[in-house]
């Protein structure tokens, strides 16, 4: 029997050399890798979602961020109730927008119309980054559900978790956690933990940068009274208007910046990480979702 010219043993060195070449290719030459990753995700995601549910059961998220005893049905009902509340809010906003339009005509100042028609959908987490809790994760929702790049992911209604990247396919999308350094600078405000209803303490704006260890760092002048335990919420024009005010984390440590003695360095720790939950709530533009539903007939 003639020996095969190409055997697995002989092909292996070539495969290794090829892999080495691919590993040092520049980013622009590696965009084709998204396709095999997506194909792999199609097979792995359904099982990974179940695995994440099991992981959440074995190691639940911190109790301060999750009401004990809540089932998936309870959470879905809360999501619906919140949608009704948001609809009523939109009705009031319509009145406000009408007045703004009149004011705009009078003053000729352009104003953005924001927040109308936002619908929440739950998105199960599938594949996670194998090497880091801050890595991107795959969500089981995509264009067919109205998800667009930049969609915001939240948990418990007010806990900010991250944003959807440009990688959105028909049934899946990729979520970049807020703690990932790729998120970049975020503008937020510090809410004093001692602030009462009638307090005159004003919120202090800070610029937050994700760190390597899953926390955030910010700088502030020492004249700003910022204490450990204060809460940090989102106040960034690059994020949707309805996301403003959502929780980013709690100030863990405040200490003097050695390079700038008149400024404090602030370490902020998020109360919840993407790695601790098995699903997130995505805010989807209602018009986009209806359009996707009409095109396909059924979104779920």
């Amino acid at each position, binding site marked *: 029997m003639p020996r095969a010219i190409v055997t697995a043993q002989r092909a292996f060195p070539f495969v290794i050399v090829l*892999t080495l070449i691919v590993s040092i290719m520049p980013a622009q030459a*590696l965009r084709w890798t998204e396709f095999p990753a997506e194909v792999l995700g199609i097979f792995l995601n359904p099982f990974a979602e179940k695995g994440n549910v099991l992981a959440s059961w074995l190691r639940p998220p911190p109790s301060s961020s999750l009401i004990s005893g809540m089932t998936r049905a309870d959470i879905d009902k809360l999501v619906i109730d919140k949608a009704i509340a948001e609809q009523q809010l939109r009705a009031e906003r319509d009145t406000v927008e009408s007045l703004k339009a009149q004011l705009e005509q009078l003053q000729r100042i352009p104003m953005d119309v924001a927040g109308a028609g936002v619908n929440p959908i739950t998105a199960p987490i599938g594949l996670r980054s194998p090497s880091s809790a801050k890595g991107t994760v795959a969500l089981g929702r995509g264009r067919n559900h109205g998800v667009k790049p930049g969609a915001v992911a939240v948990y418990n209604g007010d806990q900010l978790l991250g944003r959807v990247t440009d990688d959105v396919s028909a049934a899946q999308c990729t979520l970049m956690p807020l703690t990932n350094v790729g998120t970049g600078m975020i503008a937020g405000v510090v809410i004093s933990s001692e602030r009462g209803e009638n307090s005159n303490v004003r919120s202090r704006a800070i610029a937050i940068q994700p760190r390597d260890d899953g926390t955030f760092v910010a700088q502030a002048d020492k004249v700003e009274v910022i204490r450990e335990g204060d809460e940090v919420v989102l106040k960034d024009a690059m994020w949707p208007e309805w996301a403003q005010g959502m929780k980013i984390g709690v100030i863990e440590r405040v200490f003097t910046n050695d390079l700038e003695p008149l400024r404090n360095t602030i370490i902020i720790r998020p109360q919840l990480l993407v790695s601790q939950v098995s699903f997130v709530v995505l805010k989807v533009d209602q018009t986009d979702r209806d359009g996707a539903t009409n095109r396909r007939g059924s979104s779920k």
Partner: protein
Amino acid sequence: MRWPVFAIFGFIFVIVQLSLRNVFMLHSLGGGGISPDVVACLAVFIALFAHRSAALWACWILGLLVDLAPQERATSFHLIGEHALGYVAGGIVVLQLRTMVFRRRSLTVGFLTLVFVVAASVVAVIILSIRSWYTPGTFAHGGALGELVRGLGIAVYSGLLGVPVGWLLGTTISLWGFQSGTQRRSGGR
């Protein structure tokens, strides 16, 4: 080695690595927390018993699957080679050492998993270091040294987990159909 069995176990271990890792994650440690490399445990088990060629191919395939998983860095591509080549390097190390150890001991799997992950981390850091010359922001954990230290932490944790995982895999050894790789041979392949 029976490749369908490898496919099933590889699929299961990759799912565990990508979904159940949070159960084992140590958040309090630096770099956003570390978790063990479960797929490396499987790769070590295969490298201990399979034929040399089959073991290296299996390591490459497992590394490739991990490379195609969601990335840690905010990139629009998947860096193929970081784990694929790292696992092959680890496999080569294990193939060299397997003639000197008691292969059926679960402690052996644990120790060799540590060695495997260290070797894989070194290769991964070398690749990332080369890429950092022309791609900024390649390192996600404070440079090459930070990645190495973090890799060492993952190696230790993986080695600890490798002991029970090695025992579990040892109970399935009859399914794999390993061939003469289990025979003692001086200077074996």
